[in-house]
């Protein structure tokens, strides 16, 4: 009997890649892509190598090397990670590969957990690289094998672009037998074919353009580009929006409506199939997330072939231009497009009580809270700017801490602080960066600041993990993705080697000591570093939760200043600690003017 497994989309991508003979995988964690490599590590398949690289650029370069030696190679990242990896990717398309190489860049419409709503399909157009766009986990499982096969056939890398609802969607999936596997041929020098030179770039540019044109035709027969239905109205959809549309169209057909449904799963879009879809249509509605890629391709084809078809979508404002699509939103748009009577939404007889906002917050017991608070206290009454970076500690921007004034992209904080300090020298300029981000792209910023004589205070928030994405190891942890022991990169030593002279280690839970260290750094000049070391609560052993004694004077300082989710307090009432959330970190106890917060479970008579 066939084996059916319940798989998250990212697990399906990993298992699909293994089925297709994957040999080498690399990547950098980023929501919604992180579970792909974690699944490969869990599967521990013989002969399959997988690593967390220090950033997306190194990940892609390493995979390119493996693919040049003939291995099937996979690189994973989130959409903004592709910006970091874009330099090698652009060139690699001109140089080519031997083994199949698939770059998974997971897009995040919404965005739910990202800085931008960029569309990797556009990146594919820009880089002239074919893109696969799966609409469900089971499709992703099958399609990743097609991606390897295509890459090997055209000798160029291909992009694979799932979105959050595919990555973090799940489905019961039939596990298929492995495809025929072959050992990598090994690297052959090929008379300089692997060395990018202007002449080679020109020749290959021509080949790339021809290849994309041929692919647009060939993909008209691809099983995941599909056409169904009849009538004068048509709906074109890609990615998870196709799944929403398919369900809505099923309902519409049942109520007697008529329409065609065109599923687009690739870039370049399948040209012949698209023309077949457009032939005889009066009006098209395009359902896709992020950029209007399918929509503009249909416009282009109508222009190229002189077709008169009205195209509705993001361009005319029929569909939302930003944010995530929903099953409900697509259903409504399709009903309106087909002129169906709108189903009444549920009406409630009275107005509902107002709902609380739940912005994401630093966890109870998070070491970053102490680090931010120490800097805040030491800077009271002083002019200071706090540059932030990407990670859990971006959440330090929220009230009551308000300690992140800027956040741009991975590794940007220190260089931004440097620029700020040149224009505004009368303020103190701090830059906060986490340990994984420091190794990712933070180190060049430090060297730049030292080299150019910047006057900045670098606060490294070292919690010994890549916390926001679920706790992946990095060079500072001394562990690899596969669980092996590695040389442990020492942040202190790296800073020394980069030329930072004043470095101080700080315990973020020791409020007095941490504040004193910041005050001392404020006195100095040049690049000074404070190394706040405290493990993420996911790694630390939880201590006895704290308790609030009767001695509490109801001042609310603990709740008002720290913003710890374990503390609640209302004006005029004593504070209380939620024993389920509290980790016993003791930060609030150190702050309490009445000494009323104490270690729990003891007799404090």
């Amino acid at each position, binding site marked *: 009997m066939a084996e059916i497994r319940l798989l998250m989309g990212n697990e399906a991508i990993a298992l699909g890649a293994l089925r297709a003979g994957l040999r080498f995988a690399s990547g950098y964690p980023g929501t919604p892509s992180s579970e792909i490599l974690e699944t490969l590590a869990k599967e521990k398949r013989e002969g399959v190598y997988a690593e967390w690289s220090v950033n997306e650029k190194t990940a892609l370069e390493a995979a390119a090397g493996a693919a040049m030696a003939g291995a099937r190679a996979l690189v994973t990242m989130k959409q903004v990670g592709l910006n970091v990896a874009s330099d090698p990717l652009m060139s690699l398309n001109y140089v080519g590969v031997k083994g199949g190489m698939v770059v998974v860049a997971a897009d995040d419409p919404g965005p739910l957990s990202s800085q931008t709503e960029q569309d990797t399909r556009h990146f594919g157009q820009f880089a002239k690289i074919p893109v696969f766009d799966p609409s469900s986990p089971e499709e992703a499982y099958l399609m990743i094998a097609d991606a390897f096969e295509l890459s090997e056939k055209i000798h160029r890398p291909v992009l694979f672009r799932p979105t959050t609802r595919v990555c973090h969607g*799940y489905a019961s999936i039939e596990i298929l037998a492995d495809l025929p596997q072959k050992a990598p041929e090994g690297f052959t020098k090929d008379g300089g074919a692997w060395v990018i030179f202007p002449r080679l770039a020109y020749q290959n540019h021509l080949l790339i353009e021809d290849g994309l044109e041929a692919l647009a035709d060939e993909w008209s027969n691809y099983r995941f580009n599909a056409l169904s239905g009849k009538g004068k109205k048509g709906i074109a959809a890609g990615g998870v929006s196709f799944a929403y549309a*398919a369900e809505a169209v099923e309902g519409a057909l049942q109520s007697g409506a008529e329409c065609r449904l065109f599923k687009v799963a690739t870039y370049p879009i399948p040209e012949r199939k698209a023309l077949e879809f457009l032939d005889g249509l009066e009006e098209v509605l395009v359902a896709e997330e992020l950029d209007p890629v399918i929509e503009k391709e249909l416009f282009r084809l109508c222009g190229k072939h002189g077709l008169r078809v009205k195209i509705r979508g993001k361009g005319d404002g029929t569909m939302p231009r930003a944010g995530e699509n929903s099953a409900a939103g697509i259903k409504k748009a399709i009903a309106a497009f087909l002129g169906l009577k709108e189903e009444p939404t549920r009406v409630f007889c009275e107005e509902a009580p107002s709902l609380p906002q739940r912005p994401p917050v630093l966890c109870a017991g998070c070491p970053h809270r102490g680090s931010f608070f120490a800097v805040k206290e030491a800077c009271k009454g002083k002019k200071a700017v706090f540059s932030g970076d990407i990670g859990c500690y971006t959440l330090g921007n929220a009230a009551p801490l308000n300690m992140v004034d800027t956040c741009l992209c991975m590794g940007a904080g220190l260089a931004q602080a440097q620029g700020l300090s040149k224009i505004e020298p009368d303020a103190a300029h701090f830059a906060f960066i986490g340990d994984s981000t420091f190794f990712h792209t933070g180190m060049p910023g430090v060297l730049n600041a030292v080299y150019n004589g910047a006057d900045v205070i670098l606060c490294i928030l070292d919690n010994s993990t890549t916390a926001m994405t679920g706790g992946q190891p990095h060079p500072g942890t001394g562990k690899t993705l596969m669980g092996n022991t590695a040389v442990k990169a020492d942040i202190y030593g790296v800073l020394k080697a980069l030329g930072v002279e004043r470095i101080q280690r700080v315990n973020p839970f020791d409020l007095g000591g941490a504040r004193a260290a910041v005050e001392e750094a404020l006195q100095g000049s040049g690049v000074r570093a404070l190394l706040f070391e405290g493990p993420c609560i996911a790694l630390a052993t939880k201590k006895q939760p704290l308790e609030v004694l009767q001695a509490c004077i109801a001042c609310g300082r603990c709740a008002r200043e720290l913003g710890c989710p374990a503390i609640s307090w209302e004006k005029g009432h004593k504070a209380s600690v939620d024993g389920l959330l509290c980790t016993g970190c003791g930060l609030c106890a150190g702050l309490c003017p009445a000494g009323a917060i104490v270690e729990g479970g003891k007799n404090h008579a």
Partner: protein
Amino acid sequence: MLNLLIAGVGGQGTVLSARLLGLAALEKGLKVRGSETIGMAQRGGSVVSHLRLGEGAHSPLIPLGEADLILAFEPAEALRALPFLRADGRMLVADRALQPSGTPGYDVAATLSYLKRSQPGGFFLSGEEVIARCGGRSLNVAMLGAAAALGFFPFGLQELEAALHKRLAPRTIESNLHALHFGAETAKKGGN
């Protein structure tokens, strides 16, 4: 097809409970499709899992007004999820409130009362009691037990037990089985 929505706050274990329900459905030979909230929102934000069991689902998300069941681990999250529920849908709510930190809280009594009036068939489980009797990390599994006992699912406690064994670390299985059965017993007694 059965559409089931699980709503809670990051850290309450919605992702795991959706996975357990999916595995239990798989035990019964049902098709499963769904979607989870993972990432930044998990840090104390509102989290929702969509689960669709049986034939015919294309979308991983449930359209508004089409959920047959809601399991809500927190009253405000039940209210937030309510527009997804069919007028004749069923709802199980844990009544223990989690107030957000740093932003204004909400009126718990008014919320519970509104939920009871808008969804008369709703069932309310005492979160405090579950935590007191089964421990702080057990609410999610107790909710599954209660919902199973109320006949919410196309499978029973047996399939859920099998899913627990499949998914959880051996050292946590006993306490979770305890929570599962505590939830089931409470629901059978009629709750509040």
